[in-house]
Every structure is written in structure tokens, then in C-alpha cells.
């Protein structure tokens, strides 16, 4: 019987040698005369174990990792003989880091061949769409609304309400747009699912099209993700070949097709109205809201624009029912969140779990602390526009509202860990500098405020009139927070103010009168 070996083709695995390992395993197989099929999957998200390779056995898949190309012959021997090996991790599903997760959205990621519609269907794929096609538009919208799903891009807006608004709008045509401009540092869940299970995104978008009456969708992927672009295009082609995209989907009366568009290195295009401008072929300048994209979106038509993970959550909700999804989570944060552990961290990767787990559990327990072995000093949650949390706030549960109460945000679920070598004044400066470089320039608080912010923080770093300049920074942050058109200028104050509040000692000596009251 042909032995089946699985090696990830995820960019994160390829970046640490997965291609070379796959080739070396094939060579080892040829040398030994054993018939082998090497299947390139996505990543399971256990990045410290990448390149991780798996072999199908009667007990299920057995994993080895991290495997270097030089290890391939001995790993292959251990696979064929079923013998012990120092890199053998045991049955993949029993690896504690994976077993502790609740994988609803990422259930197939790392398991299937992302370019095969058959493999997708064999693993419960397209059950959501099949059920959606038996429902009315209202019934689909009710399912999405009662699931409690909130936009996973960062803002957390209820997905069902957005879809209902578009469904109720009348127009000659409507659009479904997937925001795959995942620019936040420390986040890679969109990239992973697009590379590892692109059909779940396609299925989610198709269900959206059926629900609101749209026949055309766009996936806007950032140019920094060439592997995701290739994977999405291959999956779209596979879906068209098998009747899941195109005219009369699965024999129904619904038509729906998709096109990938590639960004061009502008961070602000992750903002939904800027993304729509870019899709229309213009500068990615933010639009004032209202009108909402749900009323006047792409080319002025009613548009559902959601993040990759929001669409990817939809098939489970339709297949399993709204309640099955809503049963997970806490408070108003329902379902699961794919959390990304990154930066200076021992066990970095993707950890999908129900809302409610604390930041401390994520960083110390699941993430294993820093890779350098030094104490954790700060964790930035939610990307470049997210707050820096000190250890004293590590009891914060992962939940939209709980983070907001502590002047933070969960954003797209990325956590970047820093050890005690971090200079928080430098990080605050970087936040302002990044905003200055990436500002679209439409509104003054963001365009000018960020530049003045860099200059003022530089003065503080140089020890010039520290107390006065700190007051200027706080004032600037308030202006940006309340006066900016979008989250770029509006949220840049989060990292800056949190650094100031929790790590005041990094901004020069504090005069007695200005000592923090807390």
C-alpha cells in the first residue's frame, strides 16, 4: 500500500525549510523502494515544530518535528518501521497544544490538500452551502445573526446585522468582498487559512452571496502574501471545475463567482472603505461613513465586506447550526477566536479557542513565555494599533469588552510578546512613525498628528522637557483618537498611551508631581 506522508506548504513552514524536507523525504522513499505519496497540506499552526511532517498510520496521523532536510532519511526509516525517533511527536491529534484547542474554523487546516475540492468535501466541506441552498435568505440571515458571530477583522461588528442590511438594500447588483489585507504584525490567521483551507473562505463568501443576493465577489489579498494568492487562485479554479462557483451553483438558481485582487503594500487598505477604493483602482483613501458599505460599497453598490476569518466561520454555523457556534465563548463574544502567538515566544503559532481564556494563560502557559528565556515584560495585543499590556494586566480574559475596559483591543487576535530587553519609548515612537508612513493623508489628526508624535517622542527620548512633552503626546493622542476618520489614526494612540501609562519608567525620570496615581 502506498504510504501517505503530509508536509506543510504553508509559507511559515516553507520559510524554515519545508520544501527541502519534502524533497528529501521523496528521495529517501525512492532509495528504499517504498511507494510514497507526499501530500502538501497547510500548517497545523504549531510553528515551533515546523517543518512538521506526518505519516498516516492505523492509529491516525503520527507527527515528527521540527524536521530538517538532513533528518529526512532517519525520519523516513522511523515512519516505515514504526520505530522510535527523537523527533517523533506521537499521534498528531494527541499533541497537547493541539488537543487543548477548539478548532471550528481551523478544523481542516493542516489536514487536507488545500487545492483539492474532493479532499475538502471528504472532510465535511460544503455542508454549510448545501444546507444554505435549502433555506430562504431570511433563514440564512437568522442563523448568522443568532450565532452571535462578530466581525473577526477587529471591529467586532455583528456579521448578521451587516448581511441583513445588504440583503434589504435594493440595487442592480451587489458585491461580496473579503478583506484579506492582513497587515497587522503578529497576525497570520488569514494567511494560514487561505493557504491551508481556502475553500472554507470561498464557501463562506458563496453563502453570503446566496443570502444577500450577490453574484460577484472579490478577495483583496495583500501583496506580501504571494503564497496565499496562489492558494486562493488554485482553490477558486478547483471550485469552478466542480460546480461550486460559477453559474447555477450545485444545480440551484444561484450564480456566484470570485476574483482575487492583489494589494500593493499600503497598510491603510485593510480599512474597509480604503480597501474598496483600492479595489476600484484608486488611491487607498479612506471614505467618510455614512454611507456605510452595506448601502454604498464597491462601485457604489450594497456590499458585504468581511474579514477572512468571519467568512471562514460561516460554513460551520450553517452546517452545525447557530447554537452549536454560540455555545462557545463568553458574554457578547460568541464562538471561537483563532489567536496568534508571535514575536519573542517559545511556542508560537495559531491557537483557536473559545473566548474567555486569559492573556496570561495564552502567553505563559500556552505560549511558554519567551523564546530567549528572559522574563516577559509586555504583550502587544491586536496588531500595531493595539495596546501594550504589562504583566499586571495578564488576568484580562480574551473578550472584546474585557479588553476595551482596560483600554485595549483584541483586534484580529494577534499577540506579540516582548522580553525585558524592550524599550517601550522606542515602541511608542514606532507606533507613531508607522502611522505617519501609512497614513492615507485624508484627515489631519492622523496625517499631521502622527508626524508631530514622532518628533515629540524624540524630544522625550532626548530628555528635553519631559513632563511638558508627555502632556503634548497625550493631547495629540486625544486629538487623533477622537478626530481621525478611521482606525489608523484613531487607534495609534492605543500603543502609545498604553506604553506611557504602564511603562512610564522608559520615558525618562518622572517628576514627583507627575507620578502616576495608580
Amino acid at each position, binding site marked *: 500500500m502506498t504510504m501517505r506522508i503530509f508536509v506543510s506548504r504553508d509559507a511559515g513552514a516553507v520559510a524554515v525549510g519545508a520544501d527541502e524536507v519534502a524533497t528529501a523525504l521523496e528521495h529517501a522513499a525512492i532509495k528504499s523502494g517504498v511507494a510514497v505519496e507526499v501530500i502538501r497540506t497547510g500548517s497545523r499552526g504549531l510553528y515551533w515544530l515546523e517543518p512538521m511532517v506526518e505519516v498516516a498510520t492505523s492509529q491516525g496521523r503520527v507527527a515528527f518535528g521540527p524536521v530538517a532536510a538532513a533528518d529526512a532519511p532517519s525520519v523516513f526509516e522511523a515512519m516505515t518501521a514504526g520505530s522510535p525517533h527523537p523527533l517523533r511527536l506521537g499521534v498528531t491529534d494527541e499533541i497537547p497544544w493541539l488537543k487543548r484547542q477548539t478548532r471550528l474554523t481551523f478544523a481542516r487546516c493542516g489536514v487536507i490538500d488545500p487545492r483539492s475540492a474532493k479532499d475538502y468535501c471528504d472532510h465535511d466541506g460544503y455542508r454549510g452551502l448545501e444546507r444554505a441552498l435549502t433555506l430562504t435568505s431570511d433563514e440564512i440571515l437568522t442563523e448568522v445573526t443568532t450565532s452571535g458571530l462578530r466581525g473577526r477583522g477587529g471591529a467586532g461588528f455583528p456579521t448578521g446585522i451587516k448581511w441583513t442590511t445588504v440583503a434589504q438594500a435594493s440595487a442592480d447588483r451587489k458585491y461580496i468582498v473579503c478583506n484579506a489585507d492582513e497587515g497587522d*504584525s503578529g497576525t497570520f490567521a488569514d494567511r494560514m487559512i487561505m493557504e491551508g483551507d481556502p475553500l472554507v473562505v470561498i464557501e463562506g463568501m458563496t453563502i453570503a452571496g446566496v443570502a444577500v443576493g450577490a453574484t460577484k465577489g472579490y478577495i483583496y489579498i495583500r501583496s506580501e502574501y504571494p503564497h496565499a494568492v496562489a492558494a486562493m487562485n488554485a482553490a477558486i479554479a478547483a471550485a469552478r471545475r466542480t460546480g461550486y462557483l460559477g453559474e447555477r451553483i450545485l444545480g440551484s438558481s444561484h450564480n456566484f463567482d470570485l476574483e482575487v485582487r492583489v494589494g500593493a503594500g499600503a497598510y491603510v487598505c485593510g480599512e474597509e472603505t480604503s480597501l474598496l477604493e483600492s479595489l476600484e483602482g484608486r488611491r487607498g483613501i479612506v471614505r467618510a461613513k455614512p454611507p456605510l458599505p452595506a448601502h454604498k460599497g464597491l462601485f457604489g453598490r450594497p456590499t458585504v465586506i468581511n474579514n477572512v476569518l468571519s467568512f471562514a466561520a460561516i460554513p460551520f454555523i450553517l452546517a452545525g447550526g447557530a447554537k452549536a457556534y454560540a455555545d462557545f465563548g463568553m458574554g457578547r463574544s460568541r464562538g471561537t477566536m483563532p489567536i496568534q502567538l508571535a*514575536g519573542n515566544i517559545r511556542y508560537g503559532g495559531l491557537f483557536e479557542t473559545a473566548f474567555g481564556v486569559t492573556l496570561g494563560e495564552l502567553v505563559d502557559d500556552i505560549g511558554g513565555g519567551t523564546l530567549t528565556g528572559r522574563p516577559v515584560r509586555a504583550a502587544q495585543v491586536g496588531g500595531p494599533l493595539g495596546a501594550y499590556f504589562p504583566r499586571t494586566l495578564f488576568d484580562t480574559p480574551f473578550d472584546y469588552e474585557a479588553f476595551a475596559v482596560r483600554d485595549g483591543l483584541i483586534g484580529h487576535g494577534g499577540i*506579540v510578546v516582548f522580553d525585558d530587553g524592550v524599550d517601550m519609548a522606542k515602541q511608542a515612537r514606532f507606533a507613531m512613525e508607522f502611522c505617519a508612513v501609512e497614513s492615507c493623508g485624508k484627515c489631519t489628526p492622523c496625517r499631521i498628528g502622527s508626524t508631530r508624535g514622532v518628533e515629540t517622542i524624540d524630544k522625550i527620548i532626548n530628555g528635553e522637557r519631559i513632563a511638558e512633552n508627555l502632556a503634548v503626546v497625550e493631547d495629540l493622542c486625544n486629538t487623533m483618537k477622537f478626530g481621525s476618520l478611521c482606525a489608523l489614526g484613531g487607534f495609534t494612540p492605543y500603543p502609545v498611551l498604553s506604553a506611557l501609562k504602564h511603562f512610564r519608567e522608559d520615558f525618562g525620570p518622572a517628576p514627583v508631581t507627575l507620578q502616576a496615581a495608580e
Partner: protein
Amino acid sequence: MTSAYEPWNEARGAAIIAEHDKLEGATLVILHAMQEAFGYVPEPAIPMIASALRLSRAEVHGVFTFYHDFRSEPAGRHVLKLCRAEACQAAGGDALAARAEAKLGVSLGNTTADARVTLEPIYCLGLCATAPSAMLDGRVVGRLDESRLDALVAEAQR
């Protein structure tokens, strides 16, 4: 190694435009295709795109200059992009960027005098769990340390 890019050619430019100008909002698609063919977006292409899409030259120029990806002149023979975002900073990316600048004798955003290597910052390759990361001519590299970076720089200089 010779350049993989074609020299600018008006007929070829026109053919690229004709391939895409029926798409909705085609400007970025065409600019990407130009850069893929020629390695940069040659100046004469701008008015050609404008006239095909019934836009003003200023509008197309505005789009071209808004996005970091588009080049107005060819890059070096190899392009080495180092991720400079927070996750890579947390994992020692600052020191590696300084090391690459010193080895190549150029600062980020510039091309070496012999036109062999363009060194650029990039803000997140999504390889944040295997940081610090880099991309050499489209090939991704993670878990950079001094020796892996040195090997990458040497490869780019060849």
C-alpha cells in the same frame, strides 16, 4: 545571472493594458502586470494606462505613487526584504537589519552601488511565529539569526 525582466517596449505595454482593461477597477491590476514584465512601471506607461481606462494622467500617477510596491525605476538584481514590524522587532529584527545594512553598505530602501542588491523594509510577511523573517526575490525565510542572514546577504550579492 541576467535580468528576468524585459526592456520597456511600447507595443508590449499596450498588449498588457489590452489584456486587463475590461476589468472593473483595473488600474492596480495593470500596474502590477507592468511591474511584473518590466521590473518597474516605466514612465511612458502612465499616460497609456490613463487613456485606456479613460482616466487623467494625474489620477493614474496618483495611484502609482500612493502604493509602496510600485517602482519608478528598476530595482537591483536581487531584492532582499527584511520584516521590520513589531513581531520581528521583538525577536531581534532591529539588530539584524543593522547588520544587513552594514554588510551591504546601504541603508534600508536603497540599492547597492553595483546594482546587485536592493535592501528594503517590509511590514509583515505574516511569518510572525517564526520571526525574524525576510524575503529574497519572492522566497520566504524565517527564524533568521546572524549566520542565516549572512548566508542570505551573500546569496543576494552573487
